[in-house]
């Protein structure tokens, strides 16, 4: 991205209300336009890096809605990440995030840590956790960790059940691996039923987005290079993701960050074109799924939450998912008025700014509950943590991944 991109902003302000954070707190400095102007002032040496500036730039969900809707084509996302990078450079990072990023960039240590947290989560901390919150979420509402990481539950290659159609690579992401093995199992069953041989590379590491979206470009670089090398096969084997955020990283983020670091981005570019979100992939090959669907399935009411990193960063629009849902037997789809609005999770945002995050997620929940649906599907595990963690009655509205819904509709 050209540094002079910032001049494209004519300060029209159309981004203000597209920003979920501005919508809640109505203060110009945290609006996308305000932040762009702060970056411009900082570039002109008219504004120094301060704790206040750090706080302002932390008030961004990195949802990309401003970038997506900007008529002038300003890349807010890159400008803000770069500013965060500058702030980290000058101020360092708080210890909790340093620990988190350390684990995310060292896969084997992450496995050990996940084991430890699970132990603590299930026993000693249980009583303590009952009334404690992590960010805006009650600890008791946080999902339990997988007993065994998903990638250790399945073989490296799962052979197809139907007539072979080819091979796909499955990038599980950390969420499926450590938290939501139900998504991983459903995905593998659906793809193998459709006739795909599913290969799950064991050496994959965290996609790196948690680091680079906070400005940790260099920290994320080794993860980016490792995954790119692993997934960019010489042929055009599709790479399937079940996490909107991982998809954003693999499809768009890697190229952006490598270019920002002035590193070779050619492999990341090739990889980018092969990555498919699972819902998108199923939609594009629906004919291979259709014969295996149970057309007698009883009706269930379903509503949808469109993850920002799916609709904004991967151009997998709500209309595509809605068309897919309509074709799944047993689905009685009801649209919520704010299907396309951010859930307020935003990486560590729910932890850094619990009050703002809570307001955003509560409105989402109110509208979704208002549809009367019993299932709330969303193709992003992090949205799932945030939405289900904030539901008052998680029994009456269950949050699941679209691929789980599809798996439940198989014969």
């Amino acid at each position, binding site marked *: 991205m050209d540094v002079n991109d910032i001049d*494209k902003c004519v300060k*029209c*302000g159309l981004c203000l*209300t597209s920003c979920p954070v501005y919508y809640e707190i109505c*203060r110009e400095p945290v609006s996308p336009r305000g932040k762009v102007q702060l970056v411009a002032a900082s570039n002109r040496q008219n504004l120094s890096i301060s704790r206040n*500036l750090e706080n302002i730039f932390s008030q961004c969900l990195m949802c990309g809605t401003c970038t997506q809707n900007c008529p*002038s*084509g300003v890349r807010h996302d890159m400008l803000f990440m770069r500013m965060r990078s500058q702030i980290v450079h000058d101020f360092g990072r708080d210890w909790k995030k340093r620990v988190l990023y350390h684990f995310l960039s060292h896969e084997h240590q992450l496995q050990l840590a996940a084991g430890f947290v699970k132990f603590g989560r299930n026993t000693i901390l249980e009583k303590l956790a009952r009334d404690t919150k992590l960010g805006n979420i009650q600890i008791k509402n946080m999902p339990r960790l997988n007993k065994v990481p998903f990638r250790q539950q399945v073989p490296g290659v799962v052979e197809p059940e139907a007539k072979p159609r080819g091979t796909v690579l499955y990038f599980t992401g950390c969420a499926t691996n450590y938290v939501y093995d139900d998504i991983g199992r459903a995905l593998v069953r659906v793809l193998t039923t459709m006739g795909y041989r599913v290969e799950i590379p064991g050496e994959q590491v965290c996609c790196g987005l948690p680091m680079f979206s906070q400005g940790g470009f260099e920290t994320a670089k080794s993860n980016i290079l490792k995954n790119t090398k692993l997934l960019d096969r010489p042929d055009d084997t599709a790479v399937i993701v079940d996490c909107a955020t991982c998809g954003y990283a693999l499809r768009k983020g890697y190229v952006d960050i490598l270019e920002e670091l002035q590193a070779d981005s050619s492999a990341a570019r090739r990889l980018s074109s092969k990555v498919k979100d699972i819902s998108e992939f199923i939609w594009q090959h629906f004919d291979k799924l259709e014969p295996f669907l149970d057309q007698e399935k009883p009706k269930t009411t379903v509503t949808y939450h469109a993850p920002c990193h799916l609709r904004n960063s991967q151009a997998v629009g709500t209309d595509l998912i809605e068309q897919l849902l309509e074709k799944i037997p047993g689905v009685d789809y009801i649209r919520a008025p704010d299907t396309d609005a951010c859930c307020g999770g935003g990486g560590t945002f729910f932890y850094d700014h619990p009050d703002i995050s809570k307001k955003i997620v509560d409105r989402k929940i109110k509208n979704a509950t208002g549809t009367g649906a019993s299932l709330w599907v969303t193709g992003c595990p992090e949205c799932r943590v945030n939405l289900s963690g904030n539901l008052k009655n998680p029994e009456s509205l269950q949050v699941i991944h679209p691929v789980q819904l599809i798996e439940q509709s198989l014969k």
Partner: protein
Amino acid sequence: MINEESKSQLKQVVGEERFFDDPEEILSFSYDAFILTSEPDVVIYPITTEEVSGIMKIADRENIPVTCRGSGTNISAASLPVKKGIALCFTKMNRVIEVNTQDRYVIVEPGLINGELQKVLAQEGFFYPPDPGSINVSTIGGNIAQNAGGPRCLKYGVTSDYVLAMEVVLVSGKIVRVGSRNVKDVTGYKLSSLFCGSEGTLGIVTEATLRVVSIAESHRTILATYDDLEDTANTVADIIGSGILPAAMELMDKTVINVVADASGMSLPREAAGMLLIEIDGVEEAVEKEMNRIAEKARDNGARDVTVAHTQKESDDLWAARRLAYGAFARLAPNCIVEDVTVPVSNVPKMIKATREIADRYKLHLGILAHAGDGNMHPLIAHDPNDKDELKRIEQAAKEIFETGVSLGGTLSGEHGIGLAKAEFLPLVMNQDTLDLMADIKKTLDPKGILNPGKFV
């Protein structure tokens, strides 16, 4: 400069959490959507009328300039604090107080976003007609201050036609109420019209009672494309001249069509020289009949294609794309100036021809966008603010555009306001005695000149 004692008194009025004087906040109030910049000393977000009154008492006593602002989307620098002082921002004072569809009014606070009001009203089958391009961002307070218009004002009229009553905080801190809930009301001066469009120079609106209208039974969105811009303009004058009154009638030239297509990703007729986007509404039978008449007129005037949006979504997308035009123009160059000259509709063809000629003569990258049905022209000029020579040419061209507009019976601004951008051109449309009258009104209401100082009056 505001002394420390006044600062601490101001802080007491709203509390610590809505008073700011840090460099980041100050910088964020140093601009609006126009090209100039100027920083305030402090930023305050009031949420009640009493707070505004309390702030004004201190400002009045201490002679502190006060510049009100909503979302800061205006393009005439009307909300720029050019004399520093307090930037009074209303975005947090944004409640809908009452919706009364029986008596057809709503009562709202000034920071409410126009588009949010529309959402509330749509649930009741009603709408609030003024629809500036910034409808989804700009506030009702800002709309009132600028007497905002928009595409459908062609049929429905502008903001001042919808303000029934308002609560206003005067410079002294006194709170007055003008108007009532009645459409018919000749009880005393129509003071709401004085404050509406005063660009924050006379008083501060802290509550507004607005007239609302029920949504028409049927709508059609028509798209007519032309190989000749003159034919496009002639169609406008012909349709309006024949007595048909569409809700909205937007004209775009080739440059604007392409920029909007780029920004929205919509497939628009990129090779056309001109395009009309027309909205009609009413009872089904009338709409059908009007649509046919409009299509006939368009073809008579040389339209090569006339199509109708098939779905509500298609129609919504077309109008959403139209609203991107201003920001989208910045794709052509680092910045964009949008003019606002308005002429009687019969002179729209002449005005467009003259504008094109002036732009070519000064070698400007100019696109023509217009709420053509009411003669409200928005030439968009893409430019690089660092190119001094170009800026000079723009200045001269703008002056010629204004002079041409006025000579055709038009006026300086249809809906964007005067602010700083056009202050020097006021004598083109007002004689000295008229300017003096405005100055006298200003002096009466704001003797010390602390409300939005440095602007057109």
